[in-house]
């Protein structure tokens, strides 16, 4: 596995499988009385968030603490960046404090990738602009797998503001890696430019209309899960759709759409990365329905982030991991005792 996690494309299918497997073990931990393991004792993780966030930042913080790492939260507002310090100087200053990982949320696409060039520690992208959010995609995949089993051949529709969504990009990459069929749905104004070439190369479908996809009339057939994306009001400078009401009529998961969907497939799952605009992209009836796994996603977030921290930080003193040494392999396949030494 790579030293950094910047894009979902950094992970091969085996890496994704290993992280999801480990996340299962971490998820068990959440149900225990003592929610702490010594695995990352002595490691330091900085959560550096230049944008507001509740679930991602707190889940990374909890994940680090439950693994016994020392976690520190910094925000753009309270740091020297508000005094005009450059991102490079800030990142290098933090890195010089011998931290092991920098979890970074930044409004600029590519910021995490850029910072990874400047620092020695591992960089984990916790959302960069409209680019990627790889741990969100992993937790979505974990949530889907825990309900649907193997995702090979399963059909997931991702609906909403694709242009401004980092969640959608990471999800398409991760879900495709796990063998799922993916259809992305958005009004033409919120469909990213160049998506035609991408969808052809990566073999996912696109649609400007939601109802035929939910009806199973589109190319991938009936859907197993619908992932609603947030309409990002803060990124809307206007003109993407006439009114909120019109968006809801065309692309919202309304009560009527949910009922139709459930009538066709009672096992269908509804996902949303949060925070939800209730009544806009998702009706309260859909958000709170038995089909909704929104809180499962939040719960999986901690487990998946523990697994990511574990896979990036636990081995080889943070050095990039190569193939296992013959001695380690021999130990692993002969005796536990041999391997532990």
């Amino acid at each position, binding site marked *: *596995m790579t030293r950094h996690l910047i894009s979902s494309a950094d992970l091969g299918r085996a890496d994704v499988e*290993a992280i999801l497997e480990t996340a299962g073990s971490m998820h068990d931990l959440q149900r225990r009385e003592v929610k702490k393991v010594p695995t990352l004792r002595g490691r330091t993780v900085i959560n550096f968030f230049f944008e507001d966030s509740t679930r991602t930042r707190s889940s990374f913080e909890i994940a680090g603490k439950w693994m016994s790492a020392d976690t520190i939260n910094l925000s753009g507002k309270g740091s020297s960046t508000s005094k005009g310090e450059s991102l490079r100087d800030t990142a290098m200053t933090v890195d010089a404090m011998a931290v092991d990982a920098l979890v970074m949320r930044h409004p600029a696409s590519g910021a995490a990738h850029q910072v990874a060039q400047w620092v020695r520690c591992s960089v984990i992208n916790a959302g960069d602009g409209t680019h990627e959010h790889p741990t969100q995609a992993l937790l979505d995949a974990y949530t889907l797998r825990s309900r649907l089993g193997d995702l090979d051949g399963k059909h997931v529709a991702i609906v909403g503001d694709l242009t401004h969504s980092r969640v959608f990009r990471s999800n398409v990459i991760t879900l495709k890696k796990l063998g799922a069929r993916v259809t992305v749905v958005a009004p033409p104004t919120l469909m990213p430019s160049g998506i035609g070439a991408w969808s052809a190369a990566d073999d996912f479908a696109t649609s400007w209309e939601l109802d035929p996809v939910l009806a199973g009339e589109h190319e991938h057939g009936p859907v197993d899960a619908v992932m609603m994306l947030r309409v990002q009001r803060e990124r809307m400078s206007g003109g993407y759709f006439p009114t909120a009401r019109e968006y809801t009529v065309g692309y919202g998961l309304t009560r009527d759409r949910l009922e139709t969907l459930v009538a066709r497939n009672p096992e269908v799952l509804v996902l949303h990365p949060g925070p939800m605009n209730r009544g806009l992209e998702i009706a309260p009836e859909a958000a709170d329905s038995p089909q909704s796994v929104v809180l499962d996603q939040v719960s999986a977030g901690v487990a998946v982030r523990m697994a990511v921290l*574990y896979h990036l930080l*636990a081995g080889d003193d943070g050095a990039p991991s190569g193939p296992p040494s013959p001695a380690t*392999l*021999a130990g692993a396949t002969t005796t536990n005792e041999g391997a*532990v*030494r």
Partner: protein
Amino acid sequence: MPIPGDARDVLTADEISRALRRIGHEILERNKGADDLVLLGIPSRGVPLARRLAAAIASVEGGEVPVGELDITLHRDDLRRGPVRAAHRSRIPASGIDDRVVVLVDDVLYSGRTIRAALDALSELGRPRAVRLAVLVDRGHRELPIRADHVGKNLPTSRDERVHVRLTETDGLDVVRISGGEAR
């Protein structure tokens, strides 16, 4: 992974089977019956051994002894020494381990570090009344003050020898072989 050509057998399938039956009897005698027993295998080969021990105990005592798996990956003290290993789920019997007599089961006892990690992992799952250790092979060279309560075979080895445990459930055959070091 293939066993090197210079390996020699130290336990045959029949001997493994006899050793497990004997350990089963020892556990029953020490525990004065099968009440409150829980067997926890340490992956990978400790798990089938725990199941076989449970079957051996059931054949003597009747009834079923709960069997689980205890993954120790997150408690290892050598995580920084090699590539990352995927952590697996521990599977604890529904009856839990509180106030039970837990018998940890592993294939080889060597430095003792695996068992130290297992004791740490166990303490986060509950508070057993007692914890005991059963191993198929004790090869010596302890680095921690840990010893097994039940041993299938004491096998004095040199550090440059390797002990290969193969079980039908994981490898398709039952055998314990030793390779490397000077022939004795």
